[in-house]
């Protein structure tokens, strides 16, 4: 009975069913594109806001001064005894800076009415910097050297638009006259805002000298922890997934293990922090704030997140490959290592990188094991350095956001940029490795 209608239906005209099917498909595609569009938009907003906030952190304002190192102040007895010279504290160097900036102002012929305490232009870090320089180069005593010192956070903020004459009036750390002076010094070529590697290399600095704070210790700490995670979680995770997937008998016990691993992957990371505090610090007596403890905690957290995708990757290898290998007389071990593992490697790698990425960005468990401490000393090279105090990048970001000075806002965003760059690098490495493995069919 449908024969007649069927014969009349032209192929050139879609029938009602086809039309509604095509419409449904079109709608679905639109939904998909909307979803992707929203995601891309959110990502763009995120990136733009972070970059616009954080780019300033990589720029810093410097002032060039000719600093005189008078012998009567720095080495009264004139015998260059390091122990005696070290008795002159950072405070003792402050007058040097004061006279250097005054000299510079005079030399440039700058006159500003009502200017008081021009040394406030300069970071408190500068005195410490000078002191370290003199202690390691005693021969400069009695001479005058050209120095580039950090401008204070407010002066720096002025050139980044954070500080204005208006806000300077209400600020006890800086006055509008200072800002006029800053402009004058800039015109004279004594002041410059430029790229600042020290943001990446220097350690953190105290609350009132944001201009001197950097991510050096945090980056090292994060790097050490990733090293620990990689060295422990990769072999343990891959070995565990291979054993569970390829060798372990299927029984109640292995089922139980499986359920537990899945549950562990879902445990909030802060719980691992408590566990780490109890086991590694209180019980095993490992030092607080040490990358080794952080690495161990993150390993515990990462292991299930590596094992689950690795097992999935192994299970996805077609059983016919295993049969083929066993059929020519390969042992189970040979089957796994010659055939199954290479095929599963891309999936395992992906899981590993996702696990590492999560570990790199993890903050909560590290707070509990004391990695939130203020650390100015770089940790030593591994392996000893693994036991030295350090912070981690995400914790450092958290630290920056906790501080009052508005200059830390840009530094927090700058630290996020650094963290994102590290994640980008690890992901690119993963993609590259995956391609390499996939090329082997």
């Amino acid at each position, binding site marked *: 009975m449908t024969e007649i209608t069927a014969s009349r239906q032209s192929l050139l005209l879609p029938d009602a069913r086809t039309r509604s099917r095509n419409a449904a498909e079109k709608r679905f595609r639109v939904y998909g594109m909307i979803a992707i569009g929203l995601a891309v938009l959110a990502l763009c907003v995120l990136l733009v806001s972070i970059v616009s906030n954080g780019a300033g952190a990589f720029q810093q304002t410097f002032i060039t001064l000719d600093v005189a190192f008078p012998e009567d102040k720095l080495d009264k007895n004139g015998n260059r005894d390091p122990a005696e010279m070290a008795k002159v504290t950072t405070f003792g160097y402050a007058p040097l800076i004061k006279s250097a900036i005054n000299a510079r102002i005079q030399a440039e012929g700058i006159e500003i009415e009502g200017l008081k305490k021009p040394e406030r232009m300069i970071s408190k870090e500068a005195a410490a910097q000078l002191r370290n320089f003199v202690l390691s180069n005693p021969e400069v005593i009695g001479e005058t050297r050209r120095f580039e010192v950090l401008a204070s956070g407010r002066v720096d903020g002025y050139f980044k638009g954070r500080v204005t004459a208006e806000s300077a009036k209400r600020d006890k750390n800086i006055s509008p006259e200072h800002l006029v002076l800053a402009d004058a010094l800039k015109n004279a070529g004594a002041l410059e805002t430029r790229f600042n590697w020290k943001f990446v290399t220097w350690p953190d600095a105290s609350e009132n000298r944001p201009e001197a704070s950097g991510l050096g210790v945090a980056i090292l700490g994060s790097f050490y922890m990733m090293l620990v995670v990689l060295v422990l979680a990769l072999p343990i995770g891959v070995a565990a997934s291979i054993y569970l997937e390829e060798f372990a008998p299927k029984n109640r016990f292995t089922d139980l293990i499986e359920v537990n691993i899945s549950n562990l992957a879902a445990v909030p990371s802060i719980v691992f922090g408590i566990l780490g505090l109890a086991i590694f610090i209180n019980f095993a007596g490992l030092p607080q704030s040490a990358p080794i403890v952080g690495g161990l905690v993150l390993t515990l957290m990462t292991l299930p997140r590596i094992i689950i995708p690795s097992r999935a990757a192994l299970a996805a290898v*077609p059983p016919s*490959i295993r049969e083929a290998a066993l*059929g020519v*007389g*390969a042992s189970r071990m040979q089957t796994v290592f010659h055939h199954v593992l290479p095929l599963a490697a891309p999936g395992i790698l992906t899981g590993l990188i996702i696990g590492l990425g999560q570990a790199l960005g993890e903050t909560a468990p590290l707070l509990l094991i004391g990695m939130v401490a203020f650390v100015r000393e770089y940790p030593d090279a591994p392996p000893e350095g693994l036991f030295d105090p350090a912070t981690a990048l995400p914790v450092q970001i958290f630290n920056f956001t906790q501080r009052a000075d508005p200059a830390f806002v840009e530094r927090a965003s700058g630290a996020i940029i650094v963290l994102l760059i590290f994640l980008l690098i690890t992901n690119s490495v993963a993609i590259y490795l995956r391609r390499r493995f996939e090329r082997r069919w």
Partner: protein
Amino acid sequence: MNDMTMPEQTTKAEADYKFTAKGVDVFYADNHAIKDVSVDINDKTVTAFIGPSGCGKSTFLRCLNRMNDTIDICRVTGDIRLDGEDINDPKVDPVQLRAKVGMVFQKPNPFPKSIYDNVAYGPRIHGLASGKAELDDIVEKSLRRAALWGEVKDRLDKPGTGLSGGQQQRLCIARAVATEPEVLLMDEPCSALDPIATAQVEELIDELRQNYSLVIVTHSMQQAARVSQKTAFFHLGELVEFGETADIFTNPEDSRTESYITGRIG
């Protein structure tokens, strides 16, 4: 089950048997797939397993090199002996057994590696070649025997998975013969091959018969008749009839065999 004195007791007639299977049952969980099957497989002969789809030919074939070990739910009972030795003895390493009893699977399953590596893999892990030249020889010889050499000799470094289905099956045959097994189990080796390649594989089977014992599962009555000397007919997990190929095809004893070979069941 494990009778250490068995090999000396074997009679002259039994010594000619490569495989002797007695009372073999196979279960997939609750599915009784092979029911009390006893078969003796002669050395230097081709034995064909025929029967309708799902009757257990592959399952029984896989018992002979213990491939069923790899299936968790599969349980094999009964006595299977290779040269008088119980292959299910706990002391037997299935790896050693499979080196002696090669297998070509029903679905072509080349390794995702180069054609060369596919064939060379077995000889490599068993240490059959002492150098590159010798390995090259084995690869070429095996590919020639599998009637594949001409088609792939210029692309040995290309992936084996990039071959056509029939070529892949011949690659798997080459891979199986490269390890010089004493027994070769072939599960429908020609189901994906054209008549020319089929003829070549049948030629190979004939040639291998001079030295080896072969068991071949096939759905083609003509092929069974052409290449085999013995034929076993399976039906619903039972061995219905087993005997000389000529007898089975010309003069079947069981009515089910007759119906099957004349195309009335299956």
